[in-house]
């Protein structure tokens, strides 16, 4: 990083500053791409930090971990990670990741993307990947709106919340994403906010080593659009709100954890069950049916 110096024409004296510290996660970040695009007090960076910490904690070989993002603010997450990282098309991170995971079965593939990307345009892929129990970890950063395009309403916008395409407030019923994930067959389902860094980190570490389809929703502040339009203050104010209103309830029935506008948010680990994952199921099924004729797909050399 460059040291701050005063322009040659300036009469101001800049005090000698110590060498800037290196980012503690620099080995996992493409720091050459900094500054990143996210706004001050946006929650996405925190989720990225939790992801890196969770990955370190998981014990997985980082070279065997790939990350796929879709499009949007959260869709930029892959681009800052020094892993094999793919920035795909809007809504298609999950099928892209499905192909990647199947193409190289040695890989653990995670998806980091937003609520619009995963639950609206990508909703069909989400439910089918969960149904298949595909070997994927989906981390959905939910900031209740389409932020990259200027704060439009989406399928997670709570009723009454204001958005640029819901100028009188949103009136549609929003998705309860953990309920959707569980009902489609996800074997691991959790919800945290970007305030719960330690718990989100643990959830990510657990999800990454869990065979099959795991899903973590992380509620995150969008200070520039969602918070500003709804006069909720800065990201910091929303963190305070999470602190005051989020209630940890492990094992809660996902049916009961709808998110209402500025009301209590139930967080926790809701589902952690065992069900044979896509790969194991396919292999044992075909082995059983075809016997010696079956040649398992093992990727390319």
């Amino acid at each position, binding site marked *: 990083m460059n040291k701050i110096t005063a322009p040659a024409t300036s009469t101001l004296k800049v005090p000698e500053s110590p060498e800037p510290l290196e980012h503690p996660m620099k080995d996992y970040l493409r720091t050459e791409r900094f500054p990143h695009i996210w706004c001050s007090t946006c929650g996405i960076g925190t989720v990225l930090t939790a992801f890196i910490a969770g990955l370190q904690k998981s014990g997985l070989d980082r*070279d065997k971990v790939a990350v796929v993002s879709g499009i949007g603010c959260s869709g930029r997450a892959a*681009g800052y990670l020094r892993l094999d*990282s793919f*920035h795909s098309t809007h809504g298609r991170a999950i*099928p892209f990741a499905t192909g*990647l995971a*199947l193409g*190289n079965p040695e890989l653990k593939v995670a998806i980091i993307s937003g609520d619009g990307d995963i639950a609206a345009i990508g909703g069909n892929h989400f439910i089918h990947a969960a149904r298949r129990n595909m070997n994927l970890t989906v981390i959905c950063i939910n900031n209740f709106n389409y932020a990259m395009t200027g704060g439009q309403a989406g399928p997670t916008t709570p009723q009454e919340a204001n958005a640029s395409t819901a100028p009188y407030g949103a009136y549609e019923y929003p998705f309860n994403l953990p309920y959707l994930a569980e009902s489609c067959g996800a074997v691991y389902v959790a919800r945290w906010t970007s305030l719960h860094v330690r718990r989100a980190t643990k959830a990510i570490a657990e999800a990454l080593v869990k065979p099959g389809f795991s899903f973590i929703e992380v509620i995150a502040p969008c200070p520039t659009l969602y918070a500003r339009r709804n006069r909720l203050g800065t990201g910091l104010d929303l963190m305070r709100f999470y602190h005051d209103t989020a209630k940890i309830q492990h094992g809660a029935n996902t049916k009961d954890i709808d998110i209402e506008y500025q009301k209590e948010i139930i967080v926790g680990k809701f589902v952690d069950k065992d069900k044979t994952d896509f790969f194991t199921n396919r292999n044992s099924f075909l082995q059983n049916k075809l016997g010696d004729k079956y040649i398992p797909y093992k990727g390319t050399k």
Partner: protein
Amino acid sequence: MKADPIGVATGNHFIDGDHACGEGAIAAGCRFLAGYPITPSTEVAERIAERFPKVGGMFIQMEDEIASMAAIIGAAWGGPKVMTVTSGPGFSLMMENIGLAVMLETPCVVVNVQRGGPSTGLPPLTAQADMMQARWGSHGDYEIIALCPNSPQECFDLTITAFNLAETWRVPVMFMMDECVGHMTEKVVIPEADQIEIVPRNFYKGKKEDYRPFNFSGSGEIAPMIKAGEGYNIHITGLTHDERGYPALDAEAQDKNVRHLVDKILKNEEKIRLLEEDQIDDAEVIVISYGITSRVSQKAVQDARAAGIKVGTIRLIVVWPFPEKLIRKLASKVKAFIVPEINLGQISLEVERYAAGKAITIHVPHAGGWVHDPNDILKAIKKGVK
């Protein structure tokens, strides 16, 4: 290199074009197929679903064609050669991610067994009306390669060619069958594996820190690929990017990136070119056709020759990139080009454009559902020679 014998069903077969295409893919080394059922292409996926578990391949039926296209791109970056199969409406759904494959320079084969459109159109009946969509159906400037087989045998042979071209140029190759060719059953000879030449993926072998997933230098070289999971820690994006694969959102980067995508195909048109010429040395008119229509044209050309008309034929096998230089050259030697095709004017307009008024272009259209009456082509030949 030679084909892996495990995937080569050597022998004489009596199968349709769809099945032959599936066998061609396996022989070419394709080991990943994601698809969604749609008439009249489903038999390709059915063949693969039956054969892949016995040759170490991975078949997955996705939730739609959008997912199928996205999945094959993801899979390709995991190492294998990949393909998807569809028809009209499904081809439309694939368009956005075909653009992604172009942008990521991901080798893949997209089979479109053409049927009548627009919309649901004529599901079980033939057409050749997706030729322009194959070229530019996704948004933005780009070029792809498209091939048109005219027999089950070619569905086998040219599927292998399609994979070889995809790997050589790191580009999606559109395998533009039509319903007639797809459902026509004929003898298909599958040779021994050591008689089949295949182009393997060009994997990077150098130092990790020196790797660049793209080469925009204009040298004509195509950057080698890596597969995810080997510690290269690459980043790949559908955004306009630099040679490292990092987003670069300005006019200068756009120029480098997009020019490369276009130039690598257009500047190599003569290397990619694949066509058949017949009796063009003394020809006064030339019939230009492709796919099933080339076989219907044969009858018209035979009848015209028997009537003493000097007519030749060009059968386009690679339709995109278009053999622009060849048409320009021939336009000053002949009176007319006759272009029958099962659409209301697609390739004929390309011919007309490159003929540039030096020879007339007579289009013989057909809206689809059936092939031409050879007499209609014969009439056009007679008109052209006047």
